[in-house]
């Protein structure tokens, strides 16, 4: 496969094993290390937030203090020291934000170029509006004009707090309450930035919205918060990509994403997560504890989560759908690849509340090296959810004999008209398939990459085109050195 080869070559040129492992040297403004109410006040003041939001943060913080870090996932790691983290870091130049891309710190732009997301290029070629989150502050937002004409709001969440307080008050924490879980509570207390999207009634968002998250500063946690509201009969597709530089210590990432789909609206949320996974010996890497949840509040609303998880040392993530509206639809398509010492415990929850709701779960887990990969999912049908449909397919692929692949589904049904189907398989790449590819002239890594891509195809097909290519390359890179 040519694309894999080409990518591999590029990787070797750029940064050895981890393509995005470089550090940008920019002066940063930081809050003091550690967490207390003063740090939260500092963050809130820096962002010139209204009082209600500060109160909301403090309430979340006080609740967080009473909570314990969960330990039910099949993850083995040293619990982070929450007092040894910077909760606020922003490029100094952000105090006077650039008016256009030309004014953006050239060092930053070079970073994005290395990431392969040159803003100008994307602006021109792909027509993608990019809201780039660089550590904690949104530094450049493009295409806002075009979107504004349609009435679409696409801005940083800090801006939204100032400019759209009514919507923020109404929806923030309405899907993931501040005290929902340990990491969500922490995020609610200290979230520094993120994205806010509102698509008005009847509007089909004219372009894919995209945010590139990136953790740069050493010892910073990243706590972004995303809130997307699709009003009646609207449509939006949102892309999220994540990378982080190589560092020896573990960095914490605890994000919260809330989606609200109103009547007959559709939200498509795609993630390619490629945080630094740590080195071959399991040193360093991102701890990725993310709470993503969608509320399908309106009749016939639809939310589709697609994720390709190739990075992070630890992944703890369950993008979920609360299917409240009658006839609402939830989808979860996931590829999770773990190699070396990576551990992932990921899956979804589909909570069927409304009538005629349906959900689809397709999960493909690939485990190589010494990695552990767990699918954990819940399909729950409440007593009044008539005619619910769910189909779940979880397949695991093992590469090598030192890794593990686990499937932990929960099915809970309280309505007799439900039709729930769950299937799961675990196997390794068959010798026959491998030899067949080899006999046709592919080398071992190409063969594995090809077979794995085939294995993941149902999920990859869900990704928007420009993401799919990148994701396909990532599969190959992630599995490098896993065979032979």
């Amino acid at each position, binding site marked *: 496969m040519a694309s894999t080869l080409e990518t591999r070559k590029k990787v070797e040129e750029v940064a050895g094993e981890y393509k995005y492992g470089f550090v940008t040297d920019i002066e940063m403004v930081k809050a003091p290390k550690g967490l207390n109410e003063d740090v939260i006040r500092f963050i809130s003041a820096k962002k010139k937030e209204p009082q209600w939001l500060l109160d909301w943060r403090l309430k979340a913080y006080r609740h967080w203090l009473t909570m314990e870090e969960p330990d039910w996932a099949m993850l083995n790691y040293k619990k982070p020291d929450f007092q040894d983290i910077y909760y606020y870091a922003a490029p100094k130049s952000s105090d006077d934000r650039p008016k256009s891309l030309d004014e953006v710190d050239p060092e930053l732009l070079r970073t994005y170029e290395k990431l392969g997301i040159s803003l100008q290029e994307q602006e021109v070629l792909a027509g993608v509006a990019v809201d780039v989150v660089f550590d904690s502050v949104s530094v450049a937002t493009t295409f806002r004009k075009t979107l504004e004409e349609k009435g679409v709001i696409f801005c940083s969440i800090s801006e939204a707090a100032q400019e759209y307080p009514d919507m923020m008050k109404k929806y923030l924490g309405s899907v993931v309450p501040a005290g929902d879980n340990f990491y969500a509570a922490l995020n609610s207390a200290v979230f520094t930035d993120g994205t806010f999207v509102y698509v008005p009634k009847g509007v089909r968002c004219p372009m894919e919205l995209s945010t590139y998250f990136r953790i740069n500063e050493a010892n910073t946690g990243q706590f972004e918060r995303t809130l997307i509201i699709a009003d009646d009969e609207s449509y939006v597709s949102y892309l999220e990509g994540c990378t982080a530089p190589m560092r020896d210590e573990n960095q914490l990432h605890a994000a919260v994403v809330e989606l609200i789909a109103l009547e007959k609206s559709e939200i498509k949320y795609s993630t390619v997560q490629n945080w630094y996974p740590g080195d071959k010996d399991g040193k360093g890497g991102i701890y990725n504890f993310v709470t993503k949840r969608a509320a399908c509040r309106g009749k016939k609303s639809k939310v589709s989560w697609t994720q390709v998880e190739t990075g992070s040392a630890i992944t703890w993530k369950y993008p979920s759908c609360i299917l409240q509206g009658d006839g609402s639809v939830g989808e979860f398509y996931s590829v999770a690849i773990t190699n070396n010492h990576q551990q992932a415990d990921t899956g979804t929850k589909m909570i069927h509340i409304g009538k005629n709701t349906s959900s689809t779960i397709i999960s493909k887990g690939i485990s190589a090296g010494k990695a552990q990969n767990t699918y954990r999912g819940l399909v729950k049908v409440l007593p009044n959810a008539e005619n619910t449909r769910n189909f779940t397919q979880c397949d695991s692929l093992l590469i090598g004999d030192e890794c593990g692949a686990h499937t932990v589904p929960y099915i809970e049904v309280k309505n007799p008209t439900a039709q729930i189907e769950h299937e799961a398989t675990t196997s390794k790449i068959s010798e026959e398939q491998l030899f067949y590819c080899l006999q046709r*002239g592919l080398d071992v890594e190409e063969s594995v990459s090809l077979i794995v891509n085939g294995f993941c195809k149902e999920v990859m097909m869900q990704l928007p085109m420009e993401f799919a290519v990148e994701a396909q390359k990532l599969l190959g890179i992630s599995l490098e050195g896993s065979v032979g």
Partner: protein
Amino acid sequence: MAMLEIKNLHVEVDGQKILKGINLTINPGEVHAIMGPNGAGKSTLSYAICGKEGYEITEGSVTFNGKDFLELEPHERAAEGVFLGFQYPVEIPGVSNMNFLKAAINSIRKYRGEDELPAVEFLKLIRAKAAELEVDPEMLKRSVNVGFSGGEKKRNEMIQMAMLDPIFSVLDETDSGLDIDALRIVADGINRMRGQDKAILVITHYQRLLDYVVPDFVHVLAGGKIVKSGDKSLALKLEKDGYAGIGIDENAA
């Protein structure tokens, strides 16, 4: 120079001796047929030539165009120009025939130090080959062999062979399970591979295929050895008299 030279080849699978001293020389331009009862080691021979894992060469040598073939990886042997038509072509879910072939061709070209085949030329080529072999182009978009009937799988092998354009083709029971029309198409595909500087090894249980692909030499493999060699009349004699007719107990093999 001989194209393929097999000398005193001994092969074990799971510690069991399957091939016990095969000698076979194939020159450019020749078509050889290997026949033999079930369990004689016919498939083992094809796997050993192509380097399948688990087929341990305990003695002997395989030389291809002067190169020690046993030193090469399976994909390198493919890139040297050897194609194996599988008795049971493998299903690869999610990988379309198109992508599979494109990847294979470019990988082989890379091995040979050639540039990648431009996408347009690839498409032109595959359309032409599909038409020649009477294959529905829709089939090329489907996953490799997934959900294909026995005949479709064999036709798919023929397309792959035509696209990869090997100099030496090994066809392992390619005729099994085919109706007469499919057999004709497969035979046609094989005959297209004949040429002055090319060679073919047809492995078959029945002589039926040899009516369409006329061999220059016929060998009978039994009990892990080539016990008899001759021209195409040997195949006809086998058809008429059975293995017992040439002194082989089919069940004992």
